[in-house]
């Protein structure tokens, strides 16, 4: 311990504290170096064992003409690929990961209180927040995925034998196809009274066209033709979910007294984030088969 101010260093209190800290300390050699050495040996042995028993995969030679079905990114990106199935590709592939990384990096600048550091989950409600965050987030994610797969409609159909009555609530694609529901009346349907709710075709292409001339800057031209149902389903709803649900979780946890301090909210949200990441990765890895339809899958099906 070096202290900046020599006068201060003289004070008995400081010396007392320094001594107490000394007593709490161990020598790196041998105490730490020994552990490091042993774990290096253990993991070398484990890795050699693994490498001897399990071979790295090698499929057929790359062939741009043959697209495997399904084509999958490396496993640690399968969470993003899973997101891709539920929202606009720019959102899933770029915006969400960028914001997630920035938010991750910003954690220490949010939670600046240095209470509770240096110990595993030392607060009284910390573990509770881990549990609640992880459980809510993983179950919630699964439910959203199953909803988008029309699981409720499938269950309804297998139970009753008839088609799910509300066709636009089967999944988001159906919703998009039928949105906005609007009386689509023609003179004929008005006359015979069969004027029904249906999608408005004009909403699917609002020709804002090339309003922003990005091409003049040497960038790709930006096509601003707006498809309102698509924007709603691929962007507005997912963003609302991804922002709204975590906020809702924190609010409920706050009201119920589960998360009070900033650190507790951090633990709640971080655990939720990890749970979503893991859930999406597992679903993307093991439960997306041909055409990325939901169903059990392993890479070895390729061979």
């Amino acid at each position, binding site marked *: 311990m070096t202290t900046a101010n020599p006068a201060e260093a003289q004070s008995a209190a400081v010396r007392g504290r320094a001594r107490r800290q000394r007593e709490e300390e161990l020598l790196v050699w041998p105490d730490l170096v020994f552990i490091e050495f042993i774990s290096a040996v253990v993991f070398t042995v484990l890795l050699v064992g693994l490498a001897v028993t399990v071979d790295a995969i090698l499929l057929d030679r790359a062939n741009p003409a043959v697209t495997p079905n399904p084509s999958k990114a490396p496993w640690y990106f399968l969470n993003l690929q899973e997101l891709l199935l539920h929202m606009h590709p720019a959102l899933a592939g770029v915006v969400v990961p960028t914001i997630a990384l920035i938010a991750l990096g910003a954690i220490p600048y949010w939670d600046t209180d240095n209470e509770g*550091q240096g110990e595993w989950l*030392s607060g009284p409600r910390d573990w509770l927040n881990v549990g609640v965050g992880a459980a809510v987030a993983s179950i919630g994610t699964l439910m959203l995925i199953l909803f988008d797969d029309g699981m409720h409609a499938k269950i309804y159909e297998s139970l009753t034998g008839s088609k799910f009555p509300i066709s636009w609530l089967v999944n988001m694609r159906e919703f998009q196809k039928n949105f906005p529901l609007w009386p689509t009346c023609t003179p004929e349907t008005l006359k015979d009274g069969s004027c029904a709710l249906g999608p408005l075709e004009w909403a699917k292409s609002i020709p804002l066209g090339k309003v922003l001339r990005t091409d003049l800057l040497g960038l790709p031209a930006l096509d601003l033709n707006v498809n309102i149902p698509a924007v709603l389903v691929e962007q507005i709803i997912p963003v609302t979910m991804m922002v709204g649900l975590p906020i809702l979780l924190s609010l409920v946890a706050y009201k119920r007294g589960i998360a009070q301090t900033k650190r507790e909210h951090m633990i709640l949200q971080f655990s939720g984030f990890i749970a979503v990441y893991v859930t999406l990765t597992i679903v993307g890895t093991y439960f997306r088969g041909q055409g990325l339809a939901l169903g059990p899958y392993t890479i070895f099906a390729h061979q």
Partner: protein
Amino acid sequence: MAATERPTRRSMGDRLYDAIFSNRVWRSIFRSGYPNTPRNQMLAVATNVFLHLHPTRIHRTHVKITHTFCLGGLSFFLFLGLTISGVLLMFYYVPSVERAYEDILRLDTDVRFGQLMRNMHRWMAHGMVLTVLMHMMRVFYTGAYKPPREFNWVVGVVLLVLTLLLSFTGYLLPWDQLALWAITVGTNMVGSAPLLGEPNRFVLVGGFQVGQNALIRFYTLHVIGLPLMAAVFMTVHFWRIRRDGGLAKPL
């Protein structure tokens, strides 16, 4: 622990001991004697460039396995192992679409220990992604990102990204169907960004399709660009751990 200059053990091996640890060659390399006194133990750490990554003393809770689960250290260990096995793989691998796949095949069939080397590299790469993610979780749950360690957490996030990119660029190199299409899917995600996505994808892939240009770009990034960056950020990471007063401890 009173610091004594004399070895604590006075046994019949004294002369042998002196011959080994007090001769001019040993002293020229290690400066201090065998680390069996507190003074020599501290000198062993302080005067050795590799061990000097550590302080000479650490808080007693930090040597408990359950405090860190060795995860940061394991990530670093895997990085070193990947460097070594990677250099060996480079002896046999030519990053061209004509040869890459055959080179990997030959590695698996003709090269002595080639398959083992490739397996090691592959499993360590997967392992490193896992250990880095788990290390991040351990740092989070021990509240070790709090002041004054904010910036080191940010450095960590950069290291996480670099680790993922290292793994991703390596994924293309075997040039099999898995590699080609995983990278196609992955780079298409980049391409989907508004406005700058497509130009970025073009730069990354070096064309409209994953082909020879992409292979050489990924290879170069994988074997030199990204490892160098990772090494630089790890240097900062380790330096900052020491500057921030070692690992976080309870107040």
